[in-house]
């Protein structure tokens, strides 16, 4: 139908797209594969968001209720698109729950998958209980207590390792995940806030807290929360005889190997292409770029475009992206879709 946009994925980008489409007076059918809306910030239990500092539950929760309360938005949870027929202006989507949706345009807000640290086994995840990922550490922050999962003791020292699943050709991740530096600096502050006796060390190659994240996160974390930034990319994490973890690296400023004891090691995991992207590519007939993210159309005049007419994308489906920018891009994709519908109306008129 010419007055409906199909939005796939109900994370920050998809929720933003949907709200903007209905605000322009059109209808949205939203399809979400999980049973709750909100995407990664909700599903993975993020703590406070960068840069607003609001709890994910509250911030993304507002976006969810805005869409859920919207009469012009129909939501299918626990559902996937299994087939897409037709062309721009006249798509028909078949859903896994048996429903059929007619839409004039499609927005793919299908997001990303967290890097699975198990692919970097020498960093100890899956081998040692006190090796965690940033998402798990966020969950711990949400729970209000910082303790070692192995035995419940309060950690004296926490190491955050940057570039886990990013900038690593060994495991086919050649991109920068963009958000981990800032998220880690933020996490270090949250840890210190809850557990003042815990010292946090961040191991880095270079710090990419771009734009306004610089002083608000990097400087603040260092100057007010005493986070130590150590110039070393860690090679291996093992456990010592007394049950503490040992991180092995080279301090490239001192130019010596280091083997330093820690109580908790946190992997600042990067953003992988959505693990369903091969399937998404097949069903929607859109191309993927070489890393496996959704391929962008020519950007300057076809913003938010994909390789197929009438299908738009936004947010982390394209590449690692921040929540704020995903929301902006979602709005842009919604606008692009609405423009298509509008053109149809004019054509019909």
């Amino acid at each position, binding site marked *: 139908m010419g007055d409906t946009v199909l939005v796939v994925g109900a994370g920050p980008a998809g929720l933003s797209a949907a709200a903007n489409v209905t605000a322009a007076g059109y209808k949205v059918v939203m399809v979400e594969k999980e049973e709750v809306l909100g995407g990664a910030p909700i599903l993975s239990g993020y703590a406070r968001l960068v840069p607003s500092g609001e709890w994910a539950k509250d911030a993304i929760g507002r976006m969810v209720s805005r869409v859920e309360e919207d009469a012009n938005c129909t939501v299918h949870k626990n559902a996937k698109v299994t087939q897409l027929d037709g062309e721009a202006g006249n798509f028909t989507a078949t859903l896994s729950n048996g429903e059929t949706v007619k839409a004039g345009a499609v927005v793919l807000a299908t997001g990303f998958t967290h890097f699975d640290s198990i692919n970097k086994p020498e960093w100890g995840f899956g081998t040692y209980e006190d090796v965690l990922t940033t998402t798990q550490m966020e969950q711990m922050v949400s729970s209000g207590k910082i303790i070692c999962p192995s035995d419940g003791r309060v950690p004296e*020292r926490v190491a955050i390792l940057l570039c886990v699943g990013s900038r690593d050709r060994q495991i086919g991740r050649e991109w920068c995940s963009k958000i981990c530096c800032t998220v880690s600096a933020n996490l270090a502050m949250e840890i210190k806030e809850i557990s003042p006796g815990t*010292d946090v*060390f961040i191991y880095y190659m270079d*710090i990419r807290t771009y734009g306004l994240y610089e002083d608000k996160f*990097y*400087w603040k974390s*260092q*100057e007010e929360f*005493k986070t*130590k*930034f*150590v*110039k070393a990319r860690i090679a291996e994490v093992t456990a010592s005889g007394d049950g503490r973890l040992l991180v092995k690296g080279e*301090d490239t*400023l*001192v130019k*010596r*190997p*280091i*083997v*330093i*004891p820690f109580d908790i090691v946190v992997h600042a995991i990067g953003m992988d292409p959505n693990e369903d992207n091969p399937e998404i590519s097949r069903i929607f007939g859109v191309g993927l770029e070489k890393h496996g993210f959704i391929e962008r159309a020519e950007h300057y005049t076809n913003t938010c475009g994909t390789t197929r007419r009438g299908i738009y994308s936004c947010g982390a489906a394209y590449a690692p992206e921040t929540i704020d920018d995903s929301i902006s891009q979602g709005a842009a994709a919604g606008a692009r879709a609405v423009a298509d519908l509008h053109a149809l109306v004019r054509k019909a008129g």
Partner: protein
Amino acid sequence: MAIHEKSLIEPERLLKHDSLVVDGVDVSGHWNTMIAPRTITDYDDDFEAKIQKYGGGENVHRCWQCGSCTNSCTVYAQNVQFNPRYWIYLIRLGLKEEIVKDKDIIWQCVSCNKCTDICPKDVRPEGVMKALSHWMEDEGITGKSPSKIFDEEFLDQIYKTGRIEDGKVVQNFFKKTGQSLFQDWLRVFMLRMMKGLPIMHLMRMGWNTVHTPRTRSWGRTGEVLKAYVQEQKEARHG
């Protein structure tokens, strides 16, 4: 069998018994030589705070290792071993052993303050160099530097009399640092000074050097001042 790459090992890391028999086997010299690893195995978490308690070291935690201080440094231009950025990093992680290796050059800072002027994060590296020097003196890692001796002589006189006598300061400083008073440059300096000064002034200087007058109604002020300074120092360093 000599170690081919011996120059790559600091001599103090070579463990060797020149003459040794173990289980009846002669393993003297290189047959028993072992090398101690150069790996860093821990940080001293409290060290940064310790340096921060010395005047000038307060902002050391702000450093992000951009290198502006080293690049702008007057001493670095003469000696590339003089690297404030590096020492600041070592302070932050508490790598004392590495710092101590440079004990003989750290005090060479000339306090030109170009580093402090250029630092984008207001670390005040010049102050950090001072703080570091003082810590090393306190720990006995380095002997008292000439400037420290000078300071002490200066302060001592203040405590005693509430004022300083330049002649006496110079005299005692030379004595304490084991230098002869009869140095050519000093003689020339004195002669020229005497030529230019009114006779009464000179006489008073001479008189004062011998009699060291006190500031009027100085009383116990010196003792109180000394106790206060000591108190402050203890409060800072515990």
